[in-house]
């Protein structure tokens, strides 16, 4: 019988559903977490159950959002610049999602936004941005170089909204749009995006 070469589609469209393995099942729930992280990236809340601040429910939601962000980041941590880079990013997230500072009317950051944020940073090989959040739970990354500024709102499913503000010979010029992470280098090209993404380790 002839055999084909063992090739696999570079863009598999079938989401992996790994069947449970009896031989490998000893780690039970632990492995479910691992496989969830590695395969489907469908994360459960993992956070601290200790309430802080005036609203314990909000505090728990914020702790969960922090945990999900960190788990998401850890899944691809081998591709980040350094452990120090990761540690500083986590400190930014801890500060952003601090229950004492959070407006209780704002929605905590959603997991899909965290995933888009991390995928975007790795894809762009961008230096660590400033961090914010919209009131509907999306992370906002921002880079400033001199008086030029790039702001990107990270929505679930690799969707991003970008806003550029740059100084030109005729004054301040602004532009904005909505696209996917993959298209960002193309749509930002006229604004010399490396001014925001390069430098820093």
């Amino acid at each position: 019988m002839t055999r084909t070469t063992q090739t696999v589609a570079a863009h598999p469209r079938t989401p992996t559903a790994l069947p449970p393995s009896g031989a490998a099942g000893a780690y039970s729930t632990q492995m479910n977490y691992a496989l969830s992280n590695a395969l489907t990236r469908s994360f459960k809340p993992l956070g601290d159950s200790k309430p802080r601040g005036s609203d314990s429910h909000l505090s728990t939601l914020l702790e969960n959002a922090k945990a999900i962000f960190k788990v998401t980041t850890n899944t691809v941590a081998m591709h980040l610049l350094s452990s120090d880079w990761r540690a500083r990013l986590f400190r930014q997230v801890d500060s952003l999602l601090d229950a004492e500072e959070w407006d209780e009317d704002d929605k905590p950051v959603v997991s899909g936004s965290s995933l888009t944020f991390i995928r975007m940073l790795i894809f762009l090989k961008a230096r660590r941005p400033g961090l914010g959040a919209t009131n509907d739970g999306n992370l906002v990354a921002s880079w400033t170089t001199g008086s030029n500024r790039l702001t990107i709102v990270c929505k679930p499913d690799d969707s991003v909204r970008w806003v550029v503000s740059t100084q030109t010979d005729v004054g301040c010029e602004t532009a904005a749009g909505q696209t996917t992470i993959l298209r960002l280098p193309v749509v930002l090209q006229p604004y010399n995006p490396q001014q925001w993404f390069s430098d820093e380790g």
Partner: protein
Amino acid sequence: MNSYLRPPIVEAVVEFLTNSPISFDDLQAMSNKVAGDYKNQTIEKGIEVRIDTLGGAATIHSDQTPDRFRRTSDDQADIVIFADTSLIVARAAPYPGWDVLSERIRKNWRIWSKGQSGRGVVRLGARFINRIDIPINGEERIELSDYLNLLPQIPNISDKPMSTFLVQASMPTANPHWDCNIMSTIVAPSPLLNHMSILLDIDVFRMRDIPSKSADVLAILEEARPLKNTIFERCITDRARDLFR
């Protein structure tokens, strides 16, 4: 053994299994003792559901399983689980190396193992889940054998590439006390843009001749290290290694 700049380990897990159940109160005390290293605690409630279809109509039985104390570090990378019949110590990426992991295992083991007499460990396992992220530079298909030596053998069914695969094998290792499970599959979608990812899951475990003395159990865990390393190296190619350097 190669030392990689960017090891592809997404999770390293060491588990000690005992046949002597531990009480809820003892588990809680253990969990409290590690709060300094593992800030977050989740008490996991388990339910076992059985569906019996024998004799016509399906009947459903459910039983609550003992609670587990799951703790994670502030960065969510270090995990410990105290369960009624097991201790699990795990590390997510970034993997800091065996020596660091080993020290964390040792600290938790001291708390769990109940002094020199031990808990009667019946299974000792070290499982390393690796994810090989392969950049796609416009290719429509990836030749698996460029990266992996653990491959499916597929007859000539179609000119089109596989959309996914799963290969799993269980076998003894070179060390007569240890066995292994190895598995590879596709991770779809890849967590990285413009990449395709392959999971390589290596589980080495020992269920025979496990010493009863607490200190001796940790000593034999060291045997797992070269075993899992050798299996990993034999499952991958130089082209895969280049991705981690």
